[in-house]
């Protein structure tokens, strides 16, 4: 046991001291902060106003195209050809051409522009035209706009989580989704990055042949497990640094730029129709309240468990792959089969999200190869405690199982050089007595 401790320490310290670890520790949070802050920042800066010509031969739309923050409309009175020439010669963004139309069957609208127009602008213009035509048709049919509007309803379901103890908390599948996605992806990335490190470490020891000296002092299994655990420690350290540092960076930048409630406003505008929804003053509070519906201690604890457990499950397999390879390139052929369950889990995230308590979600979240990713998608929505424990128990059992398989391949593989390894040979190693 003492010797495993020595190996763990070497694996940990030699990696934590590396420059690349330091760089990743700093860059990680900066990138993460950039991903969160940049869109907000760009949104607050607003978009550059674009000049758009309008040639309205129908003369129905003079009151529709009113200049706003985004688009500055300018009506022209000319032929289509002249307007097109003006567009090109004077550097306008685009030209809306509306021919003389029949309100019963309008067609022939065109949007000319020098480059490919943005989808959002085209949609906006189409919506303006649609609404005007609708209004005019209603008027023709003799219905009053006011009356029509008074019939319109907008329903907003308050979703509330009921717990057995009678507690009521408003829930937000939005917040749960976001947290679930982030957690699932972090675990996926962590397994890949640190699993690969594990593999490369084994290949290095094998190539430099130092492994022969080490296994004349300790059992191959101890070397393997020491490496897997040591690297888990590195990952955990890196993760904690990221979390702490990210909070500092995000809090710092947000405070400095004074962009607190902006994301909510922005979000409302993207999701709803622009004219319809004013930002609810209670929106931010509501968002905070729905965050409160998520059991954070539970999410954090589960995250740490699946983060480490998922890595350990795959780490030993990655080590075994390394032991069967003389170079990184050799390792490729075994990498894919090992990582397929993980990739599958990521692909299935969407389906799980559709029905977080369905049977697909249940099975994928208890089978150890997919459970670390899938369970973390489910936990923020709240899962039955027995499911969580079943998943955890199976993950530990799975880890013991993969480590057992991996160690049998590893102990033979690390001493083999120049063999063209295939699955048959791996099986032979696994079966070898010793």
């Amino acid at each position, binding site marked *: 046991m003492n010797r495993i401790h020595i190996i763990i320490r*070497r694996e940990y310290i030699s990696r934590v001291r590396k420059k690349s670890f330091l760089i990743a520790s700093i860059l990680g949070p900066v990138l993460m902060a950039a991903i969160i802050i940049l869109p907000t920042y760009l949104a607050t800066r607003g978009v550059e106003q674009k000049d758009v010509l309008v040639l309205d031969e129908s003369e129905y739309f003079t009151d529709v195209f009113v200049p706003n923050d985004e688009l500055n409309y300018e009506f022209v009175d000319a032929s289509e050809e002249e307007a097109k020439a003006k567009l090109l010669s004077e550097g306008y963004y685009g030209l809306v051409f509306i021919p003389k139309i029949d309100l019963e069957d309008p067609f022939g609208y065109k949007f000319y522009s020098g480059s490919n127009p943005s989808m959002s602008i085209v949609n906006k213009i189409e919506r303006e035209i649609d609404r005007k035509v609708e209004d005019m048709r209603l008027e023709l049919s003799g219905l009053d706009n006011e009356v029509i509007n008074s019939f319109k309803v907008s329903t907003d379901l308050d979703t509330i989580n009921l717990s057995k103890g009678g507690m009521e908390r408003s829930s937000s599948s939005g917040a749960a989704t976001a947290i679930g996605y982030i957690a699932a992806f972090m675990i996926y990335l962590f397994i890949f990055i640190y699993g690969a490190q594990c593999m490369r470490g084994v290949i290095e020891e094998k190539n430099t042949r130092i492994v*022969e000296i080490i296994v004349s002092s300790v059992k191959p299994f101890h070397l393997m497990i020491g490496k897997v655990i040591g690297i888990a420690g590195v990952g955990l350290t890196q993760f904690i640094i990221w979390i702490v540092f990210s909070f500092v960076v995000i809090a710092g930048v947000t405070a400095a730029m004074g962009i607190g409630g902006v994301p909510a406003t922005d979000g409302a505008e993207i999701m709803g129709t622009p004219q319809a929804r004013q930002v609810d003053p209670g929106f931010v509070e509501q968002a905070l309240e729905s965050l409160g519906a998520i059991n954070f201690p539970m999410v954090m604890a589960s995250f740490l468990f699946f983060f480490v457990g998922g890595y350990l499950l795959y780490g030993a397999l990655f080590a075994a792959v390394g032991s069967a390879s003389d170079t990184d390139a050799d390792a490729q052929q075994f990498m894919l089969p090992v990582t397929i369950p993980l990739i599958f889990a990521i692909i299935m995230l969407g389906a799980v999200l559709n029905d977080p308590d369905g049977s697909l979600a249940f099975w994928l979240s208890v089978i150890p190869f997919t459970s670390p990713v899938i369970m973390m998608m489910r936990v923020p929505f709240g899962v039955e405690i027995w499911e969580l424990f079943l998943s955890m128990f199976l993950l530990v059992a799975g880890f013991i199982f993969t480590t057992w398989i991996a160690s049998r391949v590893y102990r033979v593989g690390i001493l083999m050089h120049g063999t063209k390894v295939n699955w048959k040979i791996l099986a032979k190693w696994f079966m070898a007595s*010793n």
Partner: protein
Amino acid sequence: MDLLRINNISKAFGSHQALEDISVSIPEKSIFGLLGPNGAGKTTLIRIVTKIIEPDSGQVFLQEKEMSAALVRKIGYLPEERGLYKKMKVGDQLLYLAQLKGLSRGEATKRIKDWLEKLDLGAWRNKNIEDLSKGMAQKVQFIATVLHEPSLIILDEPFSGFDPVNADLIKNEILELRDKGTTVIFSTHRMESVEELCDHIALINKSRKILDGSKVEIKNEHREGLYTIEYKGKLPINGEFDARDTEETDAGLVKAVVKDKSGEGPNQLLKKLLREVEIHGFAEKIPSINEIFISKVKD
């Protein structure tokens, strides 16, 4: 007393029989040559002794106790293919390997310092292995092998890769260790390189032991009554002396190997030769281990 006893070891890898019923005893405080061509099974035997792999049958005893993980730590092993962590400092690396052998941190640190000074590596302690020359890295690896003061040192092809100066340095260190009571096993296919150092040898060929014992005894057993002579004159061509390998030397003499066919000993042979030619040199031709090996393999 024998420090290491290898009893009836057999090992197969699939259909390939790597070792077949090998038994060898290695006396304490000896330098033992485990000799044989490439692929004979030497490295497999060493890996079984160091418990890196298990034999299909047979046992290994160190100091009369069956080999165990704890006992393996009394062995220092220098593998044929040398290697260390490239990006780890010399001092850290030695400390790590010493601790894995069970040495305390304090004791290991002290010994590392002494050994590095002894082999002129003191200034390199905080350098990464990748910054060292190949020869220096090999010296570091030698230190790693002996640092925990093992009672048995196993060196697989120890001199490959060393320049003559360093090879000599290591050779002297090995002799010094032997004088202090350490037993040393050399494994090599270059028999001439260790012949002078070894007290005992075992020859392995095609997974079988074909010869073992004290070097002197083996050589005596394989004496063929051949003598190298240098002379002036003309030896009769007829069969009496069976002169062969005749060649002229720079001094204008003739050098040849003759055989004591009657088996009466060197004095009688010399008397007979003196009747025929003027003798300038006379010495018994003792077979080298290499020659014995080649003749044995041909049998």
